[in-house]
C-alpha cells in the first residue's frame, strides 16, 4: 500500500461478461487495452482511474478472424498483430497503412485499433480508414450487444457513444465489393512518430470501364471528430476520377473541414492539406481498384 495514495486495482477478466461487470460496478474503472493513450494520460494526471481493467486476456477481444462476410478485429488486438495479417494488407491496404502509422514499432506492439477508436482523438489514424470501409463497432454492455457505425461512434474529442458499463468488443469490416480499394494518407512534419496534422481516407469502387460507381471519403484531424464527407464522395461517383473530379473532391474535403489552430498546425494549413491528401488518396485508391479484376 502506498502511503497517502489509494491503491489502483489491476483486473484481468477472462470474459466479456466479467469485464462488463467490473466496469459496471466501478464507473471510475478504465478499460486497458494497449495502454498507449491511457497510461500516458494517467501519468500526466489527466485520468485518475480506480482500476485498470486489462481486456487482453479475453480471447474475443484479441482474436482477428476472417470469414466470407468480412473481418472481425478484436478491439484489443495490437496494431502489429493486425499488420501481420496478409489478407488485411491485401483487401484493405488503406486500413493496413493506417494501422501501420500508429506510432512506432514499439507502440504498435501495444496500441490497438479498438483503443485508437475509443480514445476518440480527432487525429486517430485508423478512424478514417475504418469509416470509408463501412466498419461497425461491436459493443457489449449490461443490456446486451449493439452495433454502431464507426462514424457515429465518436461524438467529440475524447467522447464516444459508450454508455456506462459498455465496452467495445470488436470492429467488423465487411468484405469490399469487387473492384473496390482504399487508401489512407496523413501529413506529419517528420517521417514517423508524429500525430497527424491532417489525414484523409478514400475508398472507391470502379466499374469495368473505369467509372467510379461508389466512393467514401473521410478526413481526420480537421474537426472535433473524423468526418465522413459525402460531398467529396459525390464528386467522385460517376467520373473516371480525372483531375477535375479529384480536384472537386479535394475542394469538398477542404470545405467540410472545421479545423483549429494548435501547436501542430494552423487551421488554414490543415484545410489546404486535407484537400491535397484527399486528392492523392483517391488517386492511389483508384489505381488499386483498377488492379483488382
Amino acid at each position: 500500500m502506498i502511503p497517502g495514495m489509494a491503491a489502483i486495482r489491476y483486473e484481468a477478466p477472462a470474459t466479456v461478461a466479467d469485464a462488463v461487470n467490473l466496469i459496471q460496478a466501478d464507473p471510475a474503472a478504465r478499460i486497458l487495452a494497449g495502454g498507449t493513450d491511457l497510461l500516458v494520460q494517467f501519468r500526466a494526471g489527466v485520468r485518475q482511474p480506480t482500476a485498470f481493467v486489462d481486456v487482453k486476456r479475453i480471447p474475443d477481444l484479441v482474436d482477428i478472424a476472417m470469414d466470407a462476410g468480412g473481418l472481425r478485429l478484436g478491439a484489443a488486438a495490437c496494431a502489429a498483430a493486425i499488420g501481420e495479417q496478409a489478407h488485411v494488407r491485401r483487401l484493405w491496404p488503406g486500413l493496413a497503412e493506417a494501422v501501420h502509422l500508429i506510432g512506432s514499432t514499439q507502440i504498435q506492439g501495444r496500441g490497438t485499433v479498438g483503443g485508437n477508436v475509443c480514445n476518440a482523438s480527432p487525429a486517430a489514424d485508423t478512424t478514417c480508414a475504418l469509416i470509408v470501409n463501412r466498419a461497425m463497432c461491436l459493443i457489449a454492455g449490461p443490456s446486451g450487444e449493439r452495433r454502431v457505425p464507426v462514424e457515429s461512434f465518436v461524438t467529440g474529442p475524447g467522447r464516444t457513444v459508450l454508455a456506462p458499463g459498455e465496452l467495445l468488443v470488436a470492429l467488423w469490416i465487411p468484405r469490399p465489393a469487387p473492384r473496390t480499394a482504399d487508401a489512407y494518407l496523413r501529413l506529419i512534419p517528420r517521417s514517423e512518430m508524429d500525430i497527424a496534422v491532417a489525414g484523409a481516407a478514400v475508398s472507391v469502387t470502379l466499374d469495368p470501364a473505369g467509372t467510379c460507381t461508389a466512393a467514401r471519403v473521410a478526413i481526420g484531424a480537421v474537426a472535433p471528430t473524423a468526418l465522413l464527407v459525402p460531398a467529396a464522395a459525390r464528386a467522385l461517383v460517376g467520373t473516371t476520377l480525372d483531375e477535375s473530379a479529384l480536384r472537386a473532391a479535394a475542394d469538398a474535403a477542404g470545405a467540410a473541414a472545421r479545423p483549429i489552430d494548435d501547436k501542430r498546425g494552423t487551421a488554414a494549413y490543415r484545410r489546404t492539406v486535407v484537400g491535397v491528401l484527399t486528392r492523392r488518396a483517391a488517386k492511389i485508391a483508384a489505381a488499386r481498384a483498377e488492379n483488382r479484376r
Partner: protein
Amino acid sequence: MKLHINTTINGEPAEFLCDGHETLVSALRNTLGLTGTKEGCSTGDCGACSVLLDGRLVPSCLVLAPEAHGRSITTIEGIASGDTLHPLQRVFLEDAALQCGVCTPGFIIAAKALLDANPNPTEAQARFWLAGNLCRCTGYDKIIRAVLDTAATMNEAAAV
C-alpha cells in the same frame, strides 16, 4: 495490497510484488535490478525502455507490471548467450554505433526484433522500424549501418 506476479525474464522464472499502476519498466529497474532497460520519456516516444513481451517489441513504460504475469520478457541483459555477445552487440561495438550509450539497449532490443521478423532488411526498412528509438548522439548513421552489417553477418553465418 501488492500484487504477486509470476513471470519469465530472460528465460528464467521470476517473481515480484508490485502496485496495480506500476509500470513494467519500473518493476524491471527498481524491483528486479535490471537497470539496463532505460527510461527516457515515460510516454512511449523514445524507445529507450524497449523490451520483448512474448517476443513482441513493446515500450515497457506503457506496460503495467502486472501484465507480465504468465508472460515472457526479454531485456538487454538477456541478449547475449553465456559469454558470447549477440551479433548485434558485437557489431555495434565494431561499427562504433554508440556514443553516450543510453539509447543503446533499446536500439539493440528493437533491432533484434527487426532481424527476428525480417532477417534481410533494406536501409529504409531498418530506418522506419527503428524510428521509435531516439538517439541524439549519432545521427543514426552508424546505428543503421551496424544493423545492416549484423544482418549480413548473420545471414552469412546461417548460409555456412
